[in-house]
């Protein structure tokens, strides 16, 4: 299935976010092998060079590790994954704050809304 991409961000960044999220969620477990460049390119519907760049950038951030001739693997360093989860969450929190500001909603109301959403829909508190 081809992925949907937004127009304002380079695709490699969107792919990085996508893979990071899967690592945070535990869809991709520590030490797990990522799909080959060609396979992911075909699955996501992107250029193989874009996937190579995605893997390279993820490796630079120590989120994945490439082993010569074997492929690319999710890091086994738990602290790195924890840090990744925190930074991804912070990005989402910023986005939420921005959207609320755009609607002219103040901090207390926004936090109230968040509280409400959590209680209403349930979730792992």
């Amino acid at each position, binding site marked *: 299935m*081809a992925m949907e991409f937004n127009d304002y961000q380079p695709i490699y960044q969107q792919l990085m976010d996508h893979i990071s999220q899967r690592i945070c969620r535990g869809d991709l477990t520590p030490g797990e092998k990522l799909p080959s460049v060609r396979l992911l390119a075909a699955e996501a519907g992107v250029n193989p060079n874009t996937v190579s760049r995605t893997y390279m950038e993820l490796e630079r951030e120590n989120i994945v590790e490439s082993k010569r001739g074997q492929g690319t693997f999710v890091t086994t360093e738990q602290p790195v994954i924890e840090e990744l989860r925190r930074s991804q969450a912070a990005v989402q929190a910023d986005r939420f704050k921005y959207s609320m500001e755009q609607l002219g909603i103040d901090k207390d109301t926004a936090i109230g809304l968040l509280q409400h959403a959590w209680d209403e829909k349930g979730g792992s508190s």
Partner: protein
Amino acid sequence: MTEVNLHKLTKKYGRKEALSQLEIQLPKAGITGIIGPNGSGKSTLLKLICGLIRPSSGSVELNGEQAGRKSGAVAAYLSEEDSLYDYMTIKGTVSFAAGVYPDFDQELAMTLLKEMKLHESEKVKELSRGNKARLKLAVTMARKTPVLCLDEPLSGMDPLVREDILRLIVTHLDVDRQLCLITSHEVKELEPFLDHVLIVHEGRVVVDRNVEDLKEENRKSLIDVLREVTV
């Protein structure tokens, strides 16, 4: 890897200039999209690169040699028109291609056809439009030429066939060694697959850029860029 250089390239049909004074050095490998409105000169450009037509003036060089009759060994051309023989079976088409092209890899052709779920005993005339397009592409890609020129491979195809065709290209193209030129109107669908883009408008190349750089700079989709430069 192949160096493709266009120098003062002009092509006229009668008095009308289809392409005018192009001065371009194409990327050596990867996927390059050639986009632009109908009649902008995209197909003419591909045919010139493959040596299928001659420039009115200026030149096309493949690795320093003028494009011409012998360019077929370097550049494979996928025509927008029908290029299969109706009376042949799929298997017959593959062995015919193997006889015509010295560089044809029959084993690869069969792998490609299997991936696309085409059966070798089927007759070309009984194939759907989508399956004919798949077969044409398989035959072209099985040559592994340094340059692949695909003229409108997605045009008139349903979304599933388009997806299949693009997937086949990214799975089997050697993006570090082969150069694949694709003309298309399906700009939105094509965009994520491109390394590089040429936008052709009224016989001139108005954009010649790396797609990622273009995006990082403009924060816009390719179709918006196209709209802006072709008004």
